């Protein structure tokens, strides 16, 4: 395990997760997960399937019962309701996009508008011009890639979002759409911090600088992405054989 497992205490830490525990039924899914996310850029949350990456994001947001500490810009958020955490500048792009299928694209975006926040419709439509053309279309009738655009657009819309929790944004998408999503994430990283869960390691490698690796509900590695990916033995140990092959 890396020596840098403990959450960064530095002043530039935007999100500090400490001793996060989550039980689902009898299963102890997260077992004292601790890590920090630096302000600016993209931090990757990596690991094999089922190690607790999505649960970590949901725990940070308070969408599931958890114990431990989650500091956002120094403020403890575990006692807050999900909507209160989100209003402190956290945006969520869930694994399955979770667009509202019965609402139009325009309604999906309108729902994400937050009172008092500057809205970035210009940026959203610059990144995803298709959404403007399909504003009146029901989100449930969009392709997977288009639904991902809606999900990302909702997260980018509010100008006061400081951190985006993005869960497997390229999952199940065609290569051309993956490139589009990667470009959008790069652009998003210029204006907000991103905590990215990504199974596609070549995508993760191209985007992230810092990585946190989970293994069986615990943090097994934190450090620089090059340190992890540049050492085949280390990558194999933390991410599995496919990681090295896929990279």
């Amino acid at each position: 395990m890396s020596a840098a497992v403990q959450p960064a205490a530095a002043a530039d830490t935007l999100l500090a997760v400490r001793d996060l525990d989550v039980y689902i039924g009898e299963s102890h899914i997260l077992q004292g997960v601790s890590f920090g996310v630096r302000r600016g850029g993209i931090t990757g949350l990596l690991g094999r399937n089922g190690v607790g990456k999505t649960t970590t994001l949901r725990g940070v947001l308070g969408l599931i019962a958890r114990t431990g500490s989650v500091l956002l810009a120094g403020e403890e958020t575990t006692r807050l309701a999900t909507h209160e955490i989100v209003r402190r500048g956290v945006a969520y792009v869930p694994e399955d996009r979770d667009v509202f299928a019965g609402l139009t694209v325009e309604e999906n975006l309108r729902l994400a508008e937050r009172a008092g926040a500057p809205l970035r419709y210009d940026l959203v439509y610059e990144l995803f011009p298709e959404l403007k053309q399909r504003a009146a279309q029901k989100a449930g009738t969009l392709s997977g890639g288009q639904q991902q655009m809606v999900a990302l657009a909702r997260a980018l819309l509010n100008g006061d979002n400081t951190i985006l929790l993005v869960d497997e944004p390229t999952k199940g998408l065609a290569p051309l759409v993956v490139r589009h999503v990667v470009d959008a994430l790069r652009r998003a990283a210029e204006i907000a911090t991103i905590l990215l869960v990504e199974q596609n390691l070549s995508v993760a490698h191209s985007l992230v600088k810092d990585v946190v690796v989970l293994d069986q509900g615990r943090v097994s590695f934190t450090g620089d992405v090059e340190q992890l990916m540049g050492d085949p033995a280390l990558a194999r140990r933390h991410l599995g054989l496919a990681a090295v092959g896929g990279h």
Partner: protein
Amino acid sequence: MTTIALLLITGLGLGALYFLIAAGLSLIWGLMRVLNFAHGAFFTVAAYAGWSAGRLAGGASPDLQWLIAVVVAVVVGGVFATLTEVVLIRPLYARHVGQVLVTVGLALATISLVQGGFGSDPQRLALPAWMTNTTTVLGANIPNTRMLVIVVALIVFALLLFFLQRTRFGLIVRAGVENRAMVQALGIDVQRAFTLVFAIGGMAAGLAGMLAGTYYGSIDPGRGSAMLIFAFIVVIIGGLGSVTGSAVAAVVVGELQQFLNFYGAAGVGDFSVVLLLAIVLLIRPGGFSGAST
């Protein structure tokens, strides 16, 4: 033809009453996943509150008395529902069995209290003269109360659609019916939407309580529970969470009951509604709208 016209319009009137109860039930289930067995209690308490207010305004004209009764019923239905949500349902959101027990208990306790206070016998409602008259439609003399109930239900349907389609709260409710967690993850306080939906459902149930009194000419403590059973059937046939589905299902159920109770043996209409429910569940488990399964 005369009989068919009469049955069609009285069936529509019955469907209108079912719709007023079912619309709130459907939204409450769709958004909050709460099976609200106390909905009939909102109906009953509001009807008796309206009836009492109408009697207190005895010096006013019959039209004004009736209007006062309706307004009081709507307000009392809304307040009772809001209090129920805030005090009893809110602490039990994650506990479905607890919700069922508490709403069933509230319904039983409320009916007993109403019986204790007002007696079990029906209380006659003083109606304006024009409501006791009939209007001839296709040769059939249709009681004006049936027309009134249909018109009011249509107005409520239009208002609910406007609320759901044109307001931000309506947008939140529609989104919440699909995915409540994601609505929260967009920074929206779903709790406020819960309370609002309960209040709207209670107001509609209160209105239904008073209109049912107008339709039947009297109110009684057991009618809310009796109509609630058919309203639940309407909600399931229409599709949980869909107001339009409830409207369509309410008309189908009302017409089926009226026609088969008239042409068939006693009780055939009621039985056929249960049969329809079984058929719809087998063929289309999500109901007419398919909004939810």
